[in-house]
């Protein structure tokens, strides 16, 4: 038991673990929509497009979180606007936009003396979570979960039959914009845990694993949440005892659970 309790004697480990679990639950819940609506590429793009927002905030000594949030929400609205135009395929437009914004972020970063200042943005800094960060993560996580709960019937219907939804007066494109904004919020909070580069793994892997073992949307969210929480615990303990990157360890723990789900499905003959 000592090995289990020892890491928790440090305040930074307790805060880190709590932050990872909160972010994991929010990512898992919205990740189910990301996976089932095939929006994984958008999730990845969103995590990269916030980089210039963060760098601009840093250069102006603003709050980095707020910089990320503004860039994320603007990108979400931009993607939603682009997807309504027929001139260019949505994935192509997103590919162009997100690489351009990520490049702009790197360009701005290169104007600063040291890349080290941004290493926690790129790779996460879970052990540096402050109590203010934790409160903000909890607040945003609660906002995401409550919104998904309140609009779950409309979000579900527009996911599989947007045309019928439109025929009864539900604006599918506005709900999609709402989902993208929630996704941007989720991405911004998860960057603290795993960084820009690995954020999409938290969104996609637990939800994809859950989709292998259950076909009910609500159950899928619960299973994905359990996988995300378990991965946070396993990853953070592994990082503590093996002295490796915590973000990478959490993501690899998610991948391990995905492998387990894959085996379970194969044994069941699915």
């Amino acid at each position, binding site marked *: 038991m000592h090995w289990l309790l020892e890491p928790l004697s440090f305040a930074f480990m307790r805060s880190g673990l709590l932050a990872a679990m909160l972010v994991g639950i929010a990512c898992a819940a919205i990740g189910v929509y990301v996976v089932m609506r095939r929006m994984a590429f958008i999730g990845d793009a969103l995590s990269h497009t916030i980089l210039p927002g963060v760098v601009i905030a840093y250069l102006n000594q603003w709050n980095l979180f707020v910089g990320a949030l503004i860039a994320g929400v603007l990108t979400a609205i931009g993607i939603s606007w682009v997807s309504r135009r027929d001139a260019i395929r949505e994935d192509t437009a997103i590919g162009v936009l997100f690489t351009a914004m990520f490049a702009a972020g790197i360009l701005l970063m290169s104007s600063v003396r040291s890349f080290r200042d941004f290493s926690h943005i790129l790779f996460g800094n879970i052990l540096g979570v402050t109590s203010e960060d934790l409160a903000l993560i909890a607040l945003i996580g609660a906002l995401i979960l409550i919104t998904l709960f309140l609009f779950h019937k409309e979000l579900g219907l527009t*996911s*599989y*039959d947007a045309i019928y939804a*439109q*025929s*009864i*007066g*539900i604006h599918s494109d506005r709900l999609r914009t709402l989902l993208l904004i929630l996704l941007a919020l989720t991405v911004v909070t998860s960057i603290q845990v795993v960084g820009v580069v690995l954020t999409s793994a938290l969104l996609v892997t637990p939800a994809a694993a859950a989709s292998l073992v259950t076909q009910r949307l609500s159950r899928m969210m619960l299973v994905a949440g359990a996988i995300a929480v378990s991965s946070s615990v396993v990853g953070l303990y592994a990082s503590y005892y093996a002295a490796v990157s915590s973000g990478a360890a959490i993501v690899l723990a998610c991948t391990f659970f995905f492998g387990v789900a894959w085996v379970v499905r194969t044994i069941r003959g699915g």
Partner: protein
Amino acid sequence: MLRQLSLHSAHNTWFPYGRRSYTAAVAGEPAIALHEVGAIYSGTPTVAIEAITLEIAVGTNVALIGPNGAGKSSLLKVIAGLLGVRQGMIRIFGLPIGACHHRVAYLSQRGQIDWRFPVTVYDMVMAGRYVHLGWLRRPGRDDHAAVAQVLERLDLQPLAQRQIGELSGGQQQRVLLARALVQGADLLMLDEPFNAVDATSRDVIVGVLADLRQSGKTALVATHELQQVADVFDRVVAMRDGRIVADTPAAFYQEDVRVL
């Protein structure tokens, strides 16, 4: 009198869904009245339908026939408020499009639905009640009773907890019809309900259409399969190149089909 329409009624443009959209039908008005209606596909200059004038009385079943690309689906989408109107005038039960969503049920083509999304037959049919529930409200006892009744009517009760992706084409079509029925609409617009269905499902759908007519509901059905289901229709409207080319009582449809 018909007036120039807007796609949605002036009120509730932002949040038109739910109970706030309930508006009484205008007494004595036909279920559908279109005058010189034209529409283009969104984002393109391609004409979808052109100069459509059509009046359908309450309580009639009308078959909409024509080759692929004739404009049948586009006409249904215009009436359902899914495709913007470029010109002309249109009224549904004497009201502008979108004035009362619960009164009009639209059955999409199967190909427009993501059947791999994780949802059960029961929940998909329950979606037909959403227009009555609106934002934030959960289905109540009456909604569950309505769903159970329609599932029974369409012989879908044994499949209620099945995932929609596990159904055959005919079963999927019956589920879509069940969702349209559970809405309790006065006007049903069905886009290719007989497409790729087995004989059992076709018979069930034909039975439902007959019941609808008896209960005074109006149905506009786009179909390729008129030969075996003609009995349930009062009128046949034929389309080609986005225009109506024939409009005749169903009893005489065979002669008019040659027009196509």
